């Protein structure tokens, strides 16, 4: 009976060992933005227990209004644990003049999923004034409807409502002919 208990304890010990051994390790990332010649690059440093993590796939995104915009394809870290992304210069900045950049590792077999985020001012400032005063077109804003469209609409609407008004005014004229004419 006692030997049976020992076997159970040993089995439990093995199970615990395997479990701890199979558990995902913790890792973290840092984002940095650097200018190399005329190009902008975003460097993602992945480390675990203060050691660089190599050969791990990192994805880079920029936060937009309704979702995340992927920046290039995923990049695998080198032996220094660094993944380098070419960062485009033409992404419109948000209302605060910044871009929120996210780096993500997704479902890595050793480290699982984790992410970090940073801010940069690299990007294009949208010219809201230009948007507001863009060319007149069917697809433009309320104030930028084509002139011919506005004129045609007003002519049609005024023509129809004017005719209606004329007819209604005729009804009020009926009373005028009540006694002044000969009754049939």
């Amino acid at each position: 009976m006692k030997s049976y208990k020992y076997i159970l304890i040993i089995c439990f010990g093995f199970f615990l060992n395997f479990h701890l051994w199979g558990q995902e390790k913790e890792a973290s990332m840092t984002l940095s933005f650097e200018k190399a010649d005329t190009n902008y690059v975003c460097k993602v440093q992945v480390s675990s227990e203060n050691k660089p993590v190599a050969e791990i796939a990192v994805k880079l995104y920029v936060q937009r209004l309704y979702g995340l915009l992927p920046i290039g394809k995923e990049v695998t870290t080198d032996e220094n644990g660094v993944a380098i992304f070419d960062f485009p210069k033409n992404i419109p900045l948000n209302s605060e003049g910044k871009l929120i950049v996210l780096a993500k590792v997704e479902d890595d077999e050793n480290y699982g999923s984790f992410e970090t985020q940073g801010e940069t001012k690299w990007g294009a400032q949208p010219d809201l004034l230009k948007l507001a005063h863009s060319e007149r077109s069917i697809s433009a804003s309320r104030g930028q409807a084509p002139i011919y469209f506005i004129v045609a609409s007003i002519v049609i609407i005024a023509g129809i409502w004017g005719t209606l008004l004329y007819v209604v005014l005729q009804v009020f004229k009926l009373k005028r002919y009540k006694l002044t004419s000969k009754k049939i």
Partner: protein
Amino acid sequence: MIEKDITSEKTTHETFTQEEYMVMKRDLLRPIQQIGTWGKVWIAFLVAVCLCGVYAYYIQETKSKYVTVSLRDYTMWGVYISNFVFFVALSLIGVLMSAVLKLTNFQWYRPLSRIAEVIAVAAIMLAGISIVAAMGRPDRLYYLVTHGRIQSPIVWDIIVILTYVATSIVLLFIPMIPSMSTCKNHLTNKPKWQMKMYDILSFGWEGTAEQWKILKKSVKILTVLVIPLGVSIHTVTAWLFATTLRSEWDSTNFGAYFVSGAFLLGVAGMVVAVFVIRKAYKLENYLTEMHFDKLGKALVLMSFIYIYFNINEYLVPAYKMSGLHENHLLNLFIGEEAIFYWSVVLFGMLIPASLPLIPSMRKPLPLTIIAVCVVIAAWFKRYLIVIPGLAHPYLPIQDVPDSWRHYSPSLIEMTIVAATFAAMMLIVTLFAKFFPIISVWEVAEGKLEGKDEIINYK
């Protein structure tokens, strides 16, 4: 004040006496003079259904839409929009029965014109209410006015609906002015306010030559105006769909397709209305079998026109069966909606195109049964135009709850739709309780001018 002198046109009044005219007045004022028990029960029933609709709308507006209506990301237009399209189509009845027949010198329109016009006014009002129910929040209508773009078909639709409501009301009202005078002079035992109302609305009508001249001229202007307006309203409604990039609505045929369907529905709606009014108010002498015969023939003509546009709308894309149309069309022809679709083709097009060709089928009862089928099929036709295509967007539907893939209207939605129908019938019923549902002077004038067609038909 016999109508023989209304215009300078030649009349044959010797066969239409003053006594006959008085009998006609009495007959046509009878629905206003007395209201029976069944009439009261009918009105109470309609009011009850309308109140249920108001309560359902209150629930819809005060609780989460996710709970109260079945509309989801994909099927974002449901029965409210199909109901809206149905009522817009029905409102064209006024254009066809009143304006087109009048301008083409057909005389048999005369007892039908006011019935058609009041249905048109009621239908277009309920179309407006349907669209407000679909908007989710009524205040959005205000924002549509203050923030809407003139380039947007939705703004065109609002403008054209308001214009059509106004024109239809004026077109209904102006020919009623002599009738108001008739009511004022001949009705008895009516409350003081009602008599006062007739007095105000008669605008001092005494039937003088100048008054007739003004009235005739005004009616003529409105009659000409209402035809392009009626065609516009349904064409713009079609453009609400056709100007989107969705494949199932991407058709240059859509405006004409909608207008032809509206004329078919208009004739069918007219048959049902004439049958009910004829029976309810015992107006067999005025709404005769001849009218059913004519309406039956009109039903055949309109069905064939509608079939023609349906062939263009469905068979041409089906011949090509391009990827964009394939899902939607196969779903209609052999898929989930096939029974629905083919029932609509059978009852809404093939039966009205063929059965009324047999003279006995143009008698009141058989023709009314056919017309009821057409009206029901017409409502489902709008359902099929609006809803199934939404379930087949360009990008495949993925990773969504199953309820998002299919649409079936909630109890709240169906109650509001039922209430719009009840409200339409209530408007027509109440109108008939306060105003002559058949224009006395127009019928009398018709009897004088077109006696051969009206009296000696067959």
